[in-house]
């Protein structure tokens, strides 16, 4: 954890459905790699944090201090992946659903 980069980047997170109490009805997967985004989005932002134009402007305004109270842009998921989940519905029938945006592929400053 300690050698994580300071700047906005993807961090590892494995989610176990038993930890959130959903494992009684989720048949598969039992866990999945969800990841999360964390890190600084301060001026000057390196290319790797893929800032939007707005984020670039916001970080400059904040750095210059033109307007007090402007926060740093946020480090959020950019590209995300779907996850197929096999679970039991209320009638204990087996259902397969493919949920979008369940795991992080890349992070960015927004």
């Amino acid at each position, binding site marked *: 954890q300690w050698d994580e980069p300071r700047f906005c980047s993807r961090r590892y997170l494995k989610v176990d459905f038993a930890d959130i109490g959903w494992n009684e009805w989720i*048949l598969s997967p039992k866990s999945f790699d969800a990841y999360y985004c964390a890190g600084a989005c301060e001026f000057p932002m390196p290319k790797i944090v893929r800032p939007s134009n707005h984020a670039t402007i916001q970080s400059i305004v904040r750095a210059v201090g033109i307007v007090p109270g402007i926060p740093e842009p946020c480090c959020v998921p950019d590209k995300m992946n779907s996850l197929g989940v096999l*679970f039991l519905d209320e009638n204990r029938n087996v*259902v*397969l659903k493919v*949920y979008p945006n369940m795991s992080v592929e890349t992070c960015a400053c927004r």
Partner: protein
Amino acid sequence: NHPGHSWTGLPVIADGVQRDKDPQHPPGDAAAAAATALGQGPQDMVTVHMLRLYEKYSRRGARPGGGNTVRSFRARLEVVDQKAVYFFNLTSMQDSEMILTATFHFYSEPPRWPRAREMPCKPRAKNASCRLLPPGPPARLHLLFRSLSQNAATHGLLRGAMALAPPPRGLWQAKDISSIVKAARRDGELLLSAQLDSGEKDLPGVSRPSPHAPYILVYANDLAISEPNSVAVTLQRYDPFPAGDPEPRAAPNSSADPRVRRAAASSSSAQASGPLQDNELPGLDEMPAHVHHAQHYHKHEFWSSPFRALKPRPGRKDRRKKGQDVVTTSSQMLDFDEKTMQKARRR
């Protein structure tokens, strides 16, 4: 209706999606997990089929049936008029799920060939061997679908009938029943019954649930699945905090947590003594005796109401020197020197 695709392996949907190669061997340990979660033996074909679809999606990202949802529906077997009728409760389908395809999967028992008909030999034809007539054609299988609303007592509305040529041996078949399921859902009749009628009396043991019970798969596109919190709609069955925790704003004495009660107790005893002692402005006790003596005021009379309107502060020049606080009988307001006010504000 599609021509019946019959094959030895796992049943797959009849509209040409590539077939599953290997027969009944369920994929991975997911099958074991599913079997335990369902309390079924691994032979539950609908679970094996769904696991197969899940594995196919997980490995190759192949969207099942072109949508993002596959619902399976197990049959509930009932005997109506000595016939085995399978009922399917489709009410768990969500309104946001647009049906793409629906298939009915059933196992055709190996045909019981009728015994060869024995013809009595004609006495006069000496050498004619008593010929046995070839057996008649095996009975055809009829598939009847009806739909009924939840509380209807009738047999339901006939939605579809199919005549099936019996397969050469026992195996699973799949039939496309998309139009039947869509029509039934459009009419709000989400209880479907299927009767497999081979014209013969059902064997007495038919009412026993068989590992070969038929099932329905509905391939759909859930239009709400891209909503921000769609996963909670179908998977979050209760709050992460177990029920029974008192609301944070509940009366502290009702809380299970002793600390909270203790803290609550201390603050309420503070309240019991009332704010006067705690909020007394310093200097009130140090009032010069003559003032006390003269006015015989009791402390609480200085505070006619708990909330006093703030008086604009007098200008610097006409502020009295320290120690000359005189209570003007005309107004109940008290004037304090700057230092006292600072101490009070700090308090």
